[in-house]
């Protein structure tokens, strides 16, 4: 992307109030994720059975769960897990996707055929289903979830990067560098990679929302975070048995997930509008599906 296009993009984004709101929510997730333990009024794991199932009050803004744990503190702490799952899984997906995408786009031929068929197989499974299968086969836990979401997420990115690499490798300056005898490794790292990476960075940033949703879903069905770790998904599951008497146990972590994903979606919408001049005036390309 050229500098001129970058600055046009930033100026288009900065005029979109919804995109700014989305960016603010994303920033808030980062801040709360990093500082949650200091912001939390109570220890998120500390039990106080005498004060179990209390509704929202001045002492406990979001109420308490059946063990008397403070929901607000657990929601704040849960932001850290969501941030971590987003960053860890997308780092894995990014590394795998960019590496395999560039290799297949640059070299073409059999390597490309093999990598793209692998991508087809990965994309042949509904994402959540494949994740359920992988995490169920191993011992459930957050570590498996981080890796599984990352490993499953490579395919879409590899396709994206490959299509960019296919274009870049034919550009005059790349051809010229090759004619001058530059090695493949150097050509890829110096010229092809830097010119394919911007869309991949945008894709993994927006992919964090999907990763957060998937982790929450896996934790909800008991395959992600294990008790007493306060993941938003497992907190919603904790509240299921108390839906009639203490609905706040499930309501607040659900609102947290919704708010964060909404932030990413608003920013993603703004980014797409800014990048595609055809859409200016309000038409919006749909977001990719998250489970």
């Amino acid at each position: 992307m050229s500098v001129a296009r970058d600055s046009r993009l930033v100026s288009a984004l900065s005029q979109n109030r919804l995109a700014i709101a989305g960016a603010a929510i994303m920033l808030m997730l980062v801040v709360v994720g990093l500082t949650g333990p200091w912001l939390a009024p109570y220890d998120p794991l500390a039990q106080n059975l005498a004060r179990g199932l209390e509704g929202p009050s001045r002492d406990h803004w979001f109420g308490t769960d059946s063990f008397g744990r403070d929901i607000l503190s657990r929601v704040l702490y849960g932001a850290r897990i969501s941030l971590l799952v987003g960053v860890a899984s997308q780092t894995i997906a990014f590394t795998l996707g960019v590496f395999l995408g560039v290799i297949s786009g640059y070299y073409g031929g059999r390597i490309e055929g093999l990598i793209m068929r692998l991508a087809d197989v990965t994309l042949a499974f509904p994402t959540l289903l494949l994740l359920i299968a992988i995490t169920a086969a191993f011992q459930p836990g957050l570590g498996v979830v981080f890796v599984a979401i990352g490993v499953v997420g490579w395919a879409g990115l590899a396709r994206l990067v490959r299509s960019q690499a296919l274009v870049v490798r034919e550009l005059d300056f790349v051809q010229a560098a090759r004619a001058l005898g530059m090695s493949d490794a150097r050509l890829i790292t110096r010229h092809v990679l830097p010119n394919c990476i911007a869309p991949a960075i945008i894709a993994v940033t927006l992919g964090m929302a999907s990763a957060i949703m998937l982790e929450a879903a896996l934790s909800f069905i008991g395959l992600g975070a294990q008790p007493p770790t306060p993941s938003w998904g497992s907190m919603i599951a904790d509240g299921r048995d108390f839906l009639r008497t203490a609905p706040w146990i499930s309501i607040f972590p659900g609102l947290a997930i919704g708010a964060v994903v909404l932030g990413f979606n608003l920013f993603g919408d703004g980014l797409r509008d800014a990048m595609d001049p055809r859409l200016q005036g309000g038409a919006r390309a749909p977001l990719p599906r998250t489970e």
Partner: protein
Amino acid sequence: MLQYTLRRVVHTIPVLLGVLIVTFMLLYIAPGDPVLAMVGERFDQATIDRLRAELHLDEPVWSQFYHYVAGLIRGDWGTSYITGQPVLDGIMDHFPKTLYLASVAMAFAILSGVLIGVVSAVKQSTWLDGLGMTVALVGISFPVYWVGLILILVVSVSWRLLPPSGFGGGALPYLILPALTLGMRSTAYIARLTRSSMLEVIRLDYIRTARAKGLGETRVIGKHALKAALIPVVTAIGLDFGAYLSGSVLTESIFAWPGIGRFALNAILKRDLPVIQGTVLFLAIVFVLVNLAVDLLYGYLDPRVRYERGAR
């Protein structure tokens, strides 16, 4: 069209083979001995050795894979560790209920999603558009299982209008909440897609011509514009089917709907690996075949696709 169909069908074969390898590997790499999981506490070495030979576990991995695929073709999808019942029987028992729920959810999603999308596009930049797109954005952002729980809390617990869970022989009152929940994300998705597709179409020349001819607005939008705008929506609806299949695990668990999702989830909770493996394989095959059907339908609806994909 025939050439395109053949090419798409042939393209599906390596994908299906890959799906088989992945599901086979699940059981192969899972920690724990499958024979011990089957016999439980009561076992003697002779039984273990016999079972190991019966299941071909003492053979090399490629041979095990061969027996796995041969078994699948014969209709032997393995046996549940917990109930001892054939996995395929369980799948066939539960899948129709999921299909029933998914069909109703999809019908709801298409009707409401297209309606919201069209109204938003026609009334672009008015409060109606704002409302429609806010609802769609919220629908995409909140987790389905959470929305399901909120629906139970409001509609069943507070208002006492509908039963909170169960199958009820498939009666309508039991169907409404799970179908709404399962269809919610698709509604939002279809609404956004219909709106953007519609906005592109209503700026095209032939729509201007239709208006210039003096056709009524309802006819211009309802007949001419909608027909073209729905082509990408049709594909999205088909591809969304995969989301229904995996979404059913979450929705069925909340509403105690006895479909394949809940069948899989119960197996997950008990680490009943053959059932997990079988349901994942079954749903993945359905997903691949639906994608194939959608691709063929898309090629039929929009001839450009046949040539573009043929040129690759």
